[in-house]
């Protein structure tokens, strides 16, 4: 009897559920991705020509050895301190202004604002009357976002000369647009009942926003602001390289005069600055109940956990007062002449620029070259993100706390031996990640050029290394924020740590990893410009050449090409993420 029953069950299973085929949308896209990476490698000319410059090894070794004895003379240390403050100040001002722009732009770019203005908030669908202004503002925001800070910086240098305003504006404009986009998404995702309650009692939209959506969204807005500040620090360092001052500038000067001991002093300052800001920001974001950027990206605001109120409000107070003091101190240390913004000379130069740009120089002979450079740029971004993604996935696990005793993969062990080695591995991988993200990509590229011939390969590796540090950290955060309950239940049924990893950790984390990688790919695409600056090929190199030779007519064409490419990558990445 039981056997017959067993047969019957088997038959019915065979009838109702067939094994799903391995060929589905996902596997097709993965094949597509692998093909893209292989063709990108082919673009670099690897295996066909000499890539490695054997003569450079001794210089490179020399450079590495210098890390053991950095220049700690008092003069250089005080120079380092000044440069650090300048970088910090640029980041502070850039963040402050971009958050202000983001707040105004974010309200104006949100659906809920226009629905409130036109009083169509209770309709189930987004009404056409409200769509028109919303679409226009969204489109306006997307253009400054597509152009990298460095291009903005080079443009403003042509107008203001070497001035702190260059760095601050170059951070403010693109970051303001990004912040506006994210803020608008946060506002649209915030529960609307309190807003509707106010609007329905005849309160005008600005007042209703101030008394409902803005305070409700405040923790998320603040936590994103801190994330932006981390990005601003890295950006301020890169902007130094075009001459805007600060640590990036000093590193470039020392690199050009081959003073490796000095470089390492600046590097250590950069590690310290990045490390402490990242740590502080992560701590705050953790306590604000919005642990990582992906939460903002995938917009699961309602579900995320809130910490206790006292702690939270104290932390906010503490952090914002420190921020205010630091901003004040920095504002004393660098002199900013805002009147330059509307000085007659500025306006004259802008007019000249606009006059020169139109009509843009479009001729068919360029198209071949532009197409070539575009494929190079694309290949560079794909290689960079492949390296960053793989490296990040490998390093994020040892960088997360799960391996420590008490962590998910090692819950029982209490031996001091495990504590010791776990902590060592944790610290080692974390500092590795910190080093790779703290050093700006163009500096990585310059270092790589010791041992590699110029081309898109050193550019891709430089970008990849820098993004690896960022991705690894974000991924480690993902792992630490995983829901532990399914993992504990796997352990409870006797699964070994590798099995828990395979059936619990990986399936939960992988979709988020992929989402991060795709998001960073968009960033990599924009950042190809900054390695182009130091000769790593692609559209970036052409852009910087045209900017420095004031060839604005051709610049506009190249920029258009670059923006189209950027939008293409954004679109592709968004459609991947929706799978």
């Amino acid at each position, binding site marked *: 009897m039981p056997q017959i029953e067993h047969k019957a069950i088997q038959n019915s299973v065979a009838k109702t559920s067939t094994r799903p085929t391995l060929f589905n949308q996902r596997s097709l896209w993965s094949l597509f991705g692998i093909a893209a990476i292989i063709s990108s490698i082919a673009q670099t000319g690897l295996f066909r020509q000499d890539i490695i410059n054997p003569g450079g090894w001794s210089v490179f070794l020399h450079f590495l050895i210098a890390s053991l004895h950095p220049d700690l003379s008092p003069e250089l240390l005080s120079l380092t301190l000044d440069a650090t403050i300048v970088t910090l100040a640029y980041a502070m001002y850039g963040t402050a202004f971009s958050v202000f722009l983001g707040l105004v732009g974010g309200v104006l770019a949100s659906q809920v604002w226009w629905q409130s*203005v*036109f*009083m169509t*908030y*209770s309709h*189930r669908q987004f009404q056409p009357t409200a769509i028109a202004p919303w679409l226009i503002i969204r489109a306006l925001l997307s253009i400054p976002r597509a152009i990298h800070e460095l291009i903005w910086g080079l443009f403003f240098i042509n107008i203001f000369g070497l001035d702190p305003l260059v760095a601050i504006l170059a951070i403010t404009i693109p970051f303001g647009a990004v912040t506006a986009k994210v803020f608008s998404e946060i506002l649209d995702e915030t*529960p609307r*009942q*309190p807003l*509707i*309650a*106010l*609007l*329905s*009692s*005849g*309160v*005008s939209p*600005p*007042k*209703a926003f*101030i*008394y*409902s959506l803005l*305070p*409700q969204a*405040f*923790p998320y807005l603040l936590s994103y602001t801190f994330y932006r500040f981390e990005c601003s620090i890295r950006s301020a360092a890169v902007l130094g390289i075009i001459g805007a001052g600060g640590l990036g500038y000093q590193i470039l000067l020392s690199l050009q005069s081959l003073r490796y001991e000095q470089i390492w002093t600046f590097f250590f300052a950069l590690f310290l600055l990045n490390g402490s800001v990242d740590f502080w920001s992560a701590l705050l974001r953790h306590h604000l109940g919005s642990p990582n950027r992906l939460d903002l990206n995938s917009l699961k605001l309602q579900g995320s956990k809130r910490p206790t*109120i006292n702690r939270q409000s104290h932390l906010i107070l503490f952090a914002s007062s420190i921020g205010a003091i630091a901003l004040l101190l920095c504002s004393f240390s660098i002199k900013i002449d805002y009147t330059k913004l509307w000085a007659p000379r500025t306006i004259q130069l802008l007019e000249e620029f606009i006059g020169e740009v139109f009509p843009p120089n479009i001729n068919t002979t360029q198209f071949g070259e532009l197409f070539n450079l575009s494929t190079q740029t694309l290949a560079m971004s794909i290689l960079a993100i492949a390296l960053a993604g793989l490296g990040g996935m490998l390093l994020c696990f040892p960088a997360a706390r799960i391996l420590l005793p008490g962590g998910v993969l090692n819950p029982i062990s209490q031996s001091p031996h495990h504590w010791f080695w776990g902590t060592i591995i944790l610290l080692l991988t974390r500092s590795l990640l910190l080093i790779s993200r703290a050093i700006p990509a163009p500096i990585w590229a310059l270092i790589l050029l010791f041992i590699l011939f110029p081309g898109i390969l050193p550019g891709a590796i430089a970008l990849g290394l820098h993004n690896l540090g960022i991705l690894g950290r974000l991924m480690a955060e993902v792992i630490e924020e995983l829901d532990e309950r399914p993992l504990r239940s796997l352990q409870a049924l006797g699964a070994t740590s590798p099995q828990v990893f395979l059936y619990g950790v990986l399936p939960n984390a992988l979709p988020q990893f992929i989402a991060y990688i795709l998001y960073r790919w968009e960033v990599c695409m924009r950042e190809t410009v900054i390695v182009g600056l130091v000769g790593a090929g692609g559209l970036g190199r052409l852009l910087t050449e045209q900017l420095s030779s004031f060839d604005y007519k051709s610049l506009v064409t190249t920029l258009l090409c670059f923006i189209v490419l950027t939008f293409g990558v954004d679109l592709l990445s968004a459609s991947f993420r929706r799978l």
Partner: protein
Amino acid sequence: MSGTDPIFELKHVAKRFGKSRVLANINLQILAGERVALVGPSGAGKSTLLGLLNGTQLPSQGEVWVFGRNLARLSPSQLRQVQRRIGTIYQQLHLVDNLRVIHNLNAGHLGRWSLFKAVVSLFFPLEVETAAQALFKVGIPEKLYERTDQLSGGQKQRVALARVLVQNPIVILADEPISSLDLGRSREIMDLLRDMSEQTGQTLIISLHAIELALSHCQRIIGLRQGRILFDVPAPEVLPEMVEALYRIENARTEPIQKI
């Protein structure tokens, strides 16, 4: 506007969301000072009806007249003028949790305040006296500077009532104000609402599930079922059969499933 003119008048009103019809051919007049309960099963259209009365929704057909004006004909700013005289109490989730109680109360002033004053008050609370009095009337004066998410459900509902006191409208609409409270708390909130309208002469329209509280606290009962008015009578005239007809579950729906 004379005293006998209706505050609300609905003429042949229908409301559709896409294909589904929520309200059909509603004709209704509500006079100043009346206390009206809207009762009926979930999905009968009670919330939609309240949404039509306070102008957050416009009818698909027919006309809604409030204070002698056709809402469909008003510009957004004119509509806001009308809405300032209508106070709506929703369930407690319409308060902003991470603001202090005082700011949620002062939101009742916003129709009159300038933007500048509204911003200043968020940092230095203004007109504290009015807010404190309103909170005293609803029985929790000590919660003035507490954060709203620290309050219980019943306390939040009292804050929502106090906000309407601050707004001081001509009409109060309440959309299931007691649906998430236990019986004791529900009775207290209903007592407060009745006392408010008796003391100030404010018109009160409440949608409710608890038929007993509707009968004990309101003068006029309107029964809604599947988007139509089933009955509209003074409270003492409501018969048990009418209530049963209102909440009856139709068997017709389950039959086709049984045939399969």
